[in-house]
C-alpha cells in the first residue's frame, strides 16, 4: 500500500518503514516553534522537571525557534515581563533561532520560519500556534500544539502520542481570473468543507493551479487549512519549493523531495476549478460562512486590515499599493497595513509600496499579529465593521464582541478601501 506525504514524513521521523492511519507514533521533531506563549511553555517545562534530580535543559537548542510577534512592542507591563522572561531563557539555553522586536530580524513567526530557511520538505514542525499549518507550504508536516505539549517536546525531542492522520486530497485545476487568487481559493474550500470538515485530517494539495502558485500563495492555503479543522495543509515539494528555498530563504544544501506514492490511499478527494472562482468573502462570525462577493457588495466598512501571517507578504502589499497608488482611501475609513515581517517591510519600503499606501491614507503598522486577534492595536468600536485579509472572524476576534469582521483577499480589501464598501476588484477602475 502506498503512502501519502504525511505518512511518509511520520514514518521517517519515527524510524519505521511505513505507518498507517490511526496508528500512534512519536515522531522526532525537526523544529519546535513558539511565540510569546513560550512564557507558558517555560513554566510547564520547568514543572516537568520538578521533583526529579535532572537539570532542566531543552533537548536541542538549535531546533527551537522563538519569535516575539503577538504583542510587539509590549502593550503592558505584564507582556513586557513575559518577553523579558523569554529573552533570559533563550540566553540561558543558547536558543539560536530567536527573533526579537527588531527591524533587522523580527516579524510574524509563520513568515519568519520560511524566509529564514528554517523549514524543509519532509520535516516535522510543531508550533504553539494553530496557524503552524502554514509550513506545509514547503512540504513539511507542520501542526499546532498547546504549551504543555510543547514543554514535553522541549524535554524529550519528540511529540507524544500522535495519531497518524488521514489525508484529504484537494486537486485544484484551472487558472485564476485577474483579481482572484489563493485567498479566494482557501475561503471557498473552507466554506465547502465547513469549520470541522477536515478535523483530524491533513489537506494534501495537488493540481495545476497549485503547481503554478508561488510559495507566498501556498502559505496562504496551508495557513488557513486549520480553519476547516485540518491538522495541517501540505504541498508535495516541487521546483517552486526548491526555488523558494534557494533563492528566497538562502538554503544552500541539497533538498530531498517528499512526494506521495501513486497508490497512496486518501480519505476523500475534492476537485476545484479556479477558472470559475470569483472573489470570496467569509462573513461574521464564522470562517466557513463564505459567500461570493456578489452577495456582499455594497456593505459599508469602517476598517480595512491588510496583513498578518495569512496575507502580509510582499505580493499582497504590492497588490494593495498598485490598487491604491495615486488614489485616496474613502473618507471615514481607516486602513491598517501590517507587513508580515520586517524583511518584507524593508523591501516594500525600498520598492515604494509603503509610500503609495501612506499617500493614499493607510496607516503602516509594525509587523505583528496583535490586530488580527484583538490583543494589540486596531480594535473595533461597537457596531463597527472590518474587512480584513486575516484568517479569523470569530465574534470578538478583533477585540470587540459588538463588532463584525469580514475576511477577504488583499485585492478585495484594497479596492474596497477606495469605495468604503465591499466591492469586486474585477469591476474595473482599480
Amino acid at each position, binding site marked *: 500500500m502506498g503512502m501519502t506525504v504525511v505518512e511518509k514524513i511520520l514514518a521517517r521521523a519515527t524510524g519505521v518503514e511505513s505507518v498507517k492511519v490511526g496508528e500512534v507514533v512519536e515522531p522526532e521533531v525537526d523544529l519546535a516553534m513558539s511565540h510569546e506563549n513560550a512564557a507558558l511553555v517555560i*513554566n510547564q517545562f520547568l514543572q516537568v522537571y*520538578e521533583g526529579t534530580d535532572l537539570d532542566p535543559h531543552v533537548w536541542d537548542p538549535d531546533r527551537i525557534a522563538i519569535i516575539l510577534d503577538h504583542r510587539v512592542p509590549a502593550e503592558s507591563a505584564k507582556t513586557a515581563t513575559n518577553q523579558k522572561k523569554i529573552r533570559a531563557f533563550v540566553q540561558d539555553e543558547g536558543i539560536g533561532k530567536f527573533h526579537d522586536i527588531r527591524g533587522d530580524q523580527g516579524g510574524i513567526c509563520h513568515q519568519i520560519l520560511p524566509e529564514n530557511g528554517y523549514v524543509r520538505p519532509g520535516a516535522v514542525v510543531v508550533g504553539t500556534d494553530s496557524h503552524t499549518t502554514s509550513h506545509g507550504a514547503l512540504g513539511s508536516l507542520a501542526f499546532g*500544539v*498547546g504549551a504543555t*505539549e510543547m514543554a514535553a517536546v522541549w*524535554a*524529550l525531542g519528540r511529540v507524544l502520542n500522535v495519531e497518524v492522520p488521514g489525508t484529504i486530497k484537494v486537486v485544484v485545476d484551472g487558472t485564476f481570473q485577474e483579481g482572484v487568487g489563493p485567498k479566494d481559493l482557501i475561503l471557498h474550500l473552507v466554506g465547502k468543507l465547513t469549520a*470541522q470538515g477536515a478535523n483530524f485530517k491533513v489537506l494534501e494539495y495537488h493540481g495545476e493551479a497549485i503547481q503554478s502558485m508561488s510559495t507566498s500563495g501556498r502559505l496562504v492555503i496551508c495557513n488557513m487549512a486549520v480553519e476547516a*479543522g485540518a491538522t495541517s495543509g501540505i504541498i508535495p515539494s516541487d521546483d517552486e519549493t526548491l526555488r523558494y528555498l534557494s533563492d528566497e530563504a538562502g538554503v544552500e544544501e541539497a533538498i530531498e523531495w517528499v512526494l506521495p506514492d501513486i497508490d497512496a490511499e486518501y480519505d476523500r478527494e475534492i476537485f476545484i476549478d479556479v477558472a470559475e472562482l470569483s472573489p470570496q468573502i467569509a462573513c461574521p462570525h464564522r470562517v466557513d460562512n463564505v459567500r461570493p462577493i456578489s452577495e456582499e457588495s455594497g456593505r459599508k466598512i469602517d476598517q480595512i486590515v491588510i496583513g498578518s501571517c495569512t496575507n502580509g507578504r510582499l505580493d499582497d502589499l504590492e497588490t494593495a499599493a498598485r490598487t491604491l497608488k495615486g488614489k485616496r482611501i474613502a473618507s471615514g475609513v481607516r486602513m491598517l497595513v501590517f507587513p508580515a515581517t520586517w524583511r518584507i517591510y524593508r523591501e516594500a519600503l525600498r520598492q515604494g509600496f509603503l509610500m503609495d499606501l501612506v499617500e493614499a491614507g493607510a496607516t503602516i503598522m509594525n509587523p505583528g499579529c496583535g490586530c488580527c*486577534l484583538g490583543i494589540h492595536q486596531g480594535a473595533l468600536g461597537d457596531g463597527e465593521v472590518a474587512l480584513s485579509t486575516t484568517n479569523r472572524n470569530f465574534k470578538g476576534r478583533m477585540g470587540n464582541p459588538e463588532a463584525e469582521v469580514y475576511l477577504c483577499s488583499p485585492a478585495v480589501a484594497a479596492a474596497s478601501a477606495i469605495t468604503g464598501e465591499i466591492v469586486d476588484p474585477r469591476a474595473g477602475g482599480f
Partner: protein
Amino acid sequence: MAKVVLKMEDDISTDIIYPGRFMATVLPSETPQFTFADNLEFNRQLVEGKVLKGSAIVAGYNFGSGSSREQAASTLEGHGLIVVARSFARIFLQNSINLGLRTIACPEIEAEVGDELELTGDRVLNKTTGMSFEVEPLPAARQAIVDAGGLIPYARRLLVSEAK
C-alpha cells in the same frame, strides 16, 4: 451527577472560551477569572463561585475550534467544569487531556440547562429526560495521559526513565 450549567451550539471557538485580549495571562492558576469573559452573566457566576465543581457544559460539534491557546482548557479546568460535546477540535482536545480537563465526546448528546447527567464512562445518562447516550472512548494513547494525571507527570516519568 453533573448538572448542566451551560448549553452551547456547534463550533464554539477558543476565542469564545477565552477571548484573545486576556492572553497575556497564561498561568493555569490565573486564567479562571476570564472564562467566557464576553458572557458576562456566566463569567460572574463562575468567578463568584456560584457554579459547583463537577458541573457540565453541553455543546455541539467541534467544541474548542480555532486558536491553540491552552488557556481555553486551563480556564475551564480551573472551575472543575466537565465538557460534554458532540465532538471536539483537535488541539483543544489534546490540551484538555494534557491539563486534566474532563472532556466527554458524546455524538448524540441531548440535554438542556438544569438537566442532571450521570457520567458512567461509556455512557451519559440524562436523568432528567431518561435518555441515555453512547460515549466515544478516547484512543488508548490519550487515555494513558489521562490515567497518568496529565501530560506533565506523564512526560516526567518518560524523562526520568530515559535519563537512566
